[in-house]
Structure formats: structure tokens, C-alpha cells
């Protein structure tokens, strides 16, 4: 290249020679795959990143810490007396028993919503492009994010149970049942994450993600057995609550923690929903994540 060459914009160069030239393509002895241990290490580093983000920005934990407190106080003290049959204190105590297990699934759903906005931010701020140009499995970014969100769900559930106990919730020694209910709720919440990841990847801005997620959440949360028994609802709504997974999650938690009502049916449906949602949405989310420009 001893002289500067000027080409008219119309003229192209010689057609491409695949893999030709002075830098031959190396044969695939090392195919660059990421081993399991390396993968776990990457996920660990990315989980640490999310934890540091929370430490730097404690406000991002507000939803997990405050939501269970606000909702519990609101429902127990505003609606509790009326819903429990208008008998004041006694019916309020009854309602606490009904409400606390029911709200566990709802908490995990509300927390799951945040994952979409987080992923959306990462893309807009450009961090994601650095990750995606690095020799790590692209899924590890999503897995780390999901693990942290499940952790946040557990925090919210613990706060919920603590507030519940203060408001008079009585576990009656169903400790194992409680652990089972917490595990089941976290499993359900984890399956929801993939939907919100998908939403976060599909929307243009974080605000849009929040808006659309909220619209989906409200009918699901109230059109279920989370807050009240579905007996008094009109037929069409009751039919909806029967397929609403939040009803199954709430009924399972009640069955496990109170030792009343059916357990096997709701638990089975919760597991089916959780596995089904993951199987259907996770591949889409990962594919979309890989291809997103």
C-alpha cells in the first residue's frame, strides 16, 4: 500500500474469498466452548455484580422490603374486619390467617416484574454489549440475574411472614409446611422471571416495561384467591380464577401452612404451571437475548 487509492463509491473490490488471505482460519481443535466450572464462575461473578448494585443503590430493595409491609397492613386493617364477616377483631384475625399465605405468590410475582426493567437498562447503558462480546456463555448473564431476583423474592417473603406474625398470624407449628410453601413460591416466581425477561428484551424503554408489566399484574393478582375466597365472584370471574396460577399458588401455600384444605391438587397445578412457563418462555427469552441487536 504505497499510494493512497481512491475508489468511486460504485466500484467494489474483488469478490470475497471465504477464509482466504494471510490469516487462515484455524482448525477447530479448541472450539471455545465454556466448561461447566467456568460457567459457574462467570455466573458467580455476575451475581456478585448484582449484589454490589443493590449495595450501591439500596433503594432498589425497597420493593422487596416495603411492599409486603404496606400490603399486609393495608389489607389486614382496612379490609380485614369487613372481609372476615364484619365482626371486628376476631374476623380480622381470621383474615390474617387467610391473607398471609395467599400473598406469598403475589409478592414473588411483583418482584419478578423488576427483572425486565433491569435487563432493559443493561442494554440501553451498553453493559450488555460488553458482556456479549466476552468469552462467556450469554445465558450466564440471564441466569445470574434470575438467581438474584429469586433471592429478592425470598427476602420479600421473609418480611411478609415477619409482618404477618406481628399482625397475629399463627403458624400452628406447620414449620415444614411453611418451608415447602416458600420453596414452591420461589419455584413459581423463578418461572415468571422468564416472561418478564422476555418483556424487558422486547420493549424499547424501562418505563414501558414497567407500564406493561403492571397492567398484566393487577388483574392476575386480584382475579385470584389471593385476597378473598372466590365463592362470591360471578361465574365468569370464578372460572378465570380457576385457571389463574396465582390461585393455585395461594391455595397450595394455605394448604401447607394452615393444614386446611386441599394440598395435592393446588401443589400439582403450581408445579405444572412453573415447569410449563419455564419450558415455554425460557428458550424464547434466551434466543431473543442472543439475537438482540
Amino acid at each position, binding site marked *: 500500500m*504505497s499510494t493512497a487509492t*481512491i475508489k468511486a463509491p460504485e466500484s467494489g473490490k474483488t469478490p470475497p474469498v471465504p477464509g482466504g*488471505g*494471510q490469516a487462515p482460519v484455524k482448525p477447530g481443535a479448541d472450539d471455545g466452548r465454556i466448561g461447566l466450572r467456568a460457567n459457574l*464462575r462467570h455466573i458467580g461473578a455476575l451475581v456478585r455484580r448484582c449484589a454490589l448494585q443493590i449495595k*450501591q443503590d439500596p433503594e432498589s430493595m425497597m420493593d422487596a422490603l416495603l411492599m409486603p409491609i404496606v400490603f399486609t397492613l393495608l389489607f389486614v386493617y382496612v379490609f380485614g374486619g369487613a372481609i372476615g364477616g364484619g365482626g371486628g377483631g376476631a374476623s380480622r384475625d381470621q383474615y390474617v390467617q387467610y391473607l398471609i399465605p395467599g400473598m406469598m405468590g403475589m409478592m414473588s410475582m411483583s418482584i419478578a416484574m423488576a427483572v425486565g426493567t433491569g435487563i432493559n437498562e443493561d442494554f440501553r447503558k451498553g453493559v450488555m454489549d460488553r458482556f456479549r462480546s466476552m468469552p462467556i456463555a450469554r445465558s450466564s448473564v440471564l441466569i445470574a440475574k434470575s438467581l438474584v431476583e429469586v433471592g429478592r423474592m425470598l427476602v420479600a417473603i421473609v418480611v411478609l411472614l415477619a409482618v404477618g406474625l406481628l399482625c397475629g398470624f399463627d403458624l400452628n407449628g406447620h414449620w415444614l409446611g411453611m418451608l415447602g410453601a416458600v420453596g414452591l413460591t420461589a419455584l413459581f416466581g423463578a418461572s415468571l422471571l422468564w416472561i418478564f425477561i422476555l418483556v424487558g428484551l422486547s420493549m424499547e424503554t424501562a418505563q414501558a416495561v414497567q407500564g406493561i408489566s403492571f397492567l398484566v399484574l393487577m388483574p392476575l393478582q386480584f382475579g385470584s384467591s389471593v385476597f378473598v375466597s372466590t365463592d362470591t365472584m360471578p361465574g365468569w370471574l370464578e372460572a378465570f380464577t380457576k385457571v389463574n396460577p396465582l390461585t393455585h399458588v395461594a391455595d397450595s401455600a394455605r394448604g401447607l401452612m394452615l393444614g386446611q384444605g386441599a394440598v395435592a391438587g393446588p401443589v400439582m397445578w403450581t408445579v405444572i404451571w412453573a415447569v410449563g412457563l419455564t419450558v415455554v418462555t425460557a428458550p424464547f427469552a434466551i434466543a431473543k437475548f442472543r439475537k438482540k441487536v
Partner: protein
Amino acid sequence: MTSEKTTNAVEVRGLVKHFGETKAVDGIDLDVREGTVMGVLGPNGAGKTTLVRMLSTLLQPDAGTAVVAGYDVVRQPRQLRRTIGLTGQYASVDEKLSGWENLYMIGRLLDLPRSEARKRADELLERFSLTEAARRPASKYSGGMRRRLDLAASMIGRPKVLYLDEPTTGLDPRTRNEVWEEVQNIVADGNTVLLTTQYMEEAEQLASELTVVDRGRVIAEGRVPELKAKVGGRTLEIRPGDPGEVTRMVGALAQAGLDGVAGATADEAQGLVSVPIVSDEQLTAVVGLLGARGFALADIATHLPSLDEVFLALTGQKATHKDDENALEEVAA
């Protein structure tokens, strides 16, 4: 030239990427020799960022081939990612994390053992003069510090090829110089760099060879001095205190027989004398001579050819600034 003997770190042949109707990259050929800095110069929307995104496996090309450090971008993306570093408009750091935490995280993601990752983070913060700010969140960094941290982040894996996508866009001139200095140090270490820029001056400062792109195509390529010779280099613009003196001034310069003054022109209407700058010594000599001859100067300034002038000189037409192309490049980013 020894280009036949050295290997190419980057070889691009007929690379194409279209977004719908827009031909973002429309058949680009590009060679970057090992250990050199290739500047890709072009206006907004010329396809620079799209090119870099394809070369860093973030975008799939529609046609053509690209081989980086011996790995094909389409067939061997995983191996390729081990050999590149990326800094730019979009490949950024995590703002909520501190500088140190960002570098440590990237070290761990690149499979450095913990102690090694710690050492490397300290080392690079020191090298990019960020030790004092190491524990502060990146969101609190100034523009220049952010870019230096971006650079440090891309250097952790000791990449064979470093992409710098518009490393100084949006920085003020002083900060720009700071970043240039760092890039020059990186280059002095023998790294291969592919740099995209909108600024002729930046290309001139950092790159040894240039590829000029417009509308997704290469419109000129060559070594910087050669392209500069075509385009014209810096000029010195002198405004005498008395506008009537411009002709006398050119005469005095010609009489003294200084380098490059044959090209000096007097613009009587503007009251301005322009002298092509051929060297720093000549610049000093010209100003010194005018002082010695008792000319009162109202203003002196050096002037670099703008990107528009470069394009005008190279193609006879203005660079395209199609807004829809800009928008698309931004979406792609």
C-alpha cells in the same frame, strides 16, 4: 512497504449488513496489519459502528467474511471473543459499580484467578490514573475518567485486537487529549487497534493507516500522510491588527523564504492571511518573523481540515448526513 510480509490481524472481505432498506454496511473490505492502528473515518451513519459490531460478534453479517486474529466472526465467535477488546459508544461499564469492581468482575469473567484479577484491576487503574477514584461508583466519574475506565476494561484480557469505537465523541478538547495519550500508550505497546472516528484530527493523531467510509462503502484508503497530502494539512490563519496589511504580510513572508510560504494566500476582503503549516519549526518561524518585522497581530489560529473538507477533497462531494441512517445506527447501537 512490508505489508506482504506481516500478517493481518483483521481481514474483512465484502462485508454486508442491511437493516431493511438501509444499507448500513454495503460491501466493505479492510485489512489491519498486526501491530498497527487502522483508523476508520466517516460521518455519522456511515456504517462504522455496524462494522465494529459485526467484528465483535454482536451482529451477524448478511454477506461477506471477516477474520480477526485468525478466527472467523461467523463460524468461530467463541474463540474470537477471547482475542478482542471492545471500547466505545456502547460497550460500556456498569455505572453502579466502582471502577475497581468493574475491572475485577471483567477479570473474573475472563477466567483470571481471584488474586490475578485483583492484581490486574489495581495495575490497570494505576496505569490509567484512576487509582484515587478506584472505589467510587463509575456514575460519579467525569467523562474522561469514564473513557479511561472503558479503555482499562477492554485491556484486562490483553486482547490481540482492540476496537475503539469513537473513543472521544462527546468529550471536551482537553479530555480528548487525555484519552488520545492513553490510546497512544496502548499503541506503543504494539497492540493492534481498529479505531473509528468522525474526526480527521483524531485519525491523524492516532492512526497509521486510514480507511474512509461513507454510506456503508470504502471511498478511500491509504496511509495518513498520503491522504493528508490529498486533503491538505493544517493551515495557520493570521489576522493582522490592520486588515490593509495582509498583502504586505505575505510579501514579507515570501521575502524571508520560509518553508511553505509559497502557498501563503492573502484574503483582503476578510483581512486574513493563510499559510500552510509544514512543520512546528516553520510555525514558530512564521510567527517569530512577523513579530520581528513589527506586524501587530489581532489573532492567530491553526485550522485543520474538517471532515466535510476531507470528503470534498476525496470524493468531490459532501459527506452524506442522512438522518434516517443516523437513527438506524443508533437503534443498532
